[in-house]
């Protein structure tokens, strides 16, 4: 049973990694094509601060700092919600980060499609909202996976990939270590391939559907959340229904035997 649970959590992490990385890829490419700036490239933004500071463009330094702060705030919100789950368990709190992300993505796609008049204020605020959503997503996946899954952090993932390939194929002899390395390698590979998959979808869709591409990302996330997230509730419900019918059957049989 313990082994089954362990395997289940590994598979959950892999699913989370792939789905969230795909969403990050779609959002990142869409924001680049629509707003000319990435929505989850925090490493790049830290470099940008230095670049803008050396050119003494203090207003742009502030904008980039604000974007990083919004990503940070998003991650902090997720961590706080995950922490709250210890005291108050409910379906809404469990999925509050997903609700926030999906609402922002839908909100931005509707605003972008109908009300966006391409001013720099709107561009920077929409980017801020998307960075906040990506912060929430990254914080959520990191919190629920004990800091194992970080779906927008591809610099770290690429480094992990290099180390893990070396350990897997060249110098890991311990069987337990090999199993860990294999699982971790699969997780990192799924994160990277999910991101590339999402980015390809985002880059293709954005040419035809504009801001609606973000709604596609929201629907994608919603669909897989319902599929993976609600499946335990579905299984429990099926079990209850099944056990109830079985009880009724046993009850009916016992009545029949009494009649005999």
């Amino acid at each position, binding site marked *: 049973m313990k082994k089954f649970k362990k395997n289940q959590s590994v598979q959950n992490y892999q699913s989370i990694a792939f789905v969230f990385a795909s969403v990050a890829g779609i959002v990142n490419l869409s924001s680049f094509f629509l*707003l*000319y*700036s990435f929505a989850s490239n925090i490493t790049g933004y830290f470099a*940008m601060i230095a670049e803008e500071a050396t*050119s003494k463009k203090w*207003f*742009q330094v*502030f*904008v*980039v700092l*604000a*974007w990083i*702060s*919004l990503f*940070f*705030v998003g991650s*902090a*919100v997720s961590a*706080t919600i995950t*922490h709250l789950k210890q005291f108050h368990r409910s379906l809404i709190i469990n999925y509050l980060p997903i609700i926030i992300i999906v609402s922002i993505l839908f909100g931005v796609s509707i605003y972008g499609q109908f009300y966006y008049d*391409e*001013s*720099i*204020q709107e*561009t*920077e*605020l929409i980017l*801020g909202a998307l960075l*906040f959503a990506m912060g929430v997503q990254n914080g959520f996946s990191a919190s629920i996976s004990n800091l194992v899954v970080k779906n927008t952090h591809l610099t770290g993932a690429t480094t992990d990939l290099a180390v893990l390939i070396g350990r897997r194929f060249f110098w890991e002899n311990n069987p337990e270590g090999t199993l860990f390395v294999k699982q971790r390698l699969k997780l990192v590979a799924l994160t990277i391939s999910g991101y590339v998959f999402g980015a390809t979808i985002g880059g293709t869709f954005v040419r035809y559907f504009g801001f609606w591409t973000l709604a596609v990302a929201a629907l994608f996330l919603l669909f897989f959340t319902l599929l993976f997230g609600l499946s335990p509730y579905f299984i429990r419900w099926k079990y209850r229904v099944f056990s109830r019918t079985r009880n009724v059957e046993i009850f009916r049989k016992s009545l029949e035997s009494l009649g005999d």
Partner: protein
Amino acid sequence: MLRYFLFIAVLGTLSFVGIHQVSLHSNESIQGDWEELSWNYIKSDKKIRIEDDAVIKYELASHLVVHQFEHWRILSNNRMEFKDSKGLKHSCSWYLKGRGNILELVHPNNTKETYTIKNINDSILEMHVETAVHARGVLKIVLLRKHEEV
């Protein structure tokens, strides 16, 4: 817990308000009259100098509508007017994108051109355009602000 919540709420609000206020500045700094000062081809596979060569300039920048105009007037209503030395005129819409570092021009036939603003101050506007006409490289366009004569 409450203090942490307050901290992230204040930080998030300040970031959004700050972005809104700061972006007003980017919009204003680019408006005005500008005059073409130089065109350079940089970061290229080949060494090409085009400052004084009108033919090469034409070939490298032929995909850009603005290459034929020397005077740029950037107006506050997101309209932009171009004029060449013979008085020929062209107008389009302009938008700042990214963190205020991308200038997007939308022409009446809906074609778009994007320029990366590398430097902007009271007198100079330096923009880069990626091109792959002759070889990979970047076109560096420098404009000089025209101050109104008193």
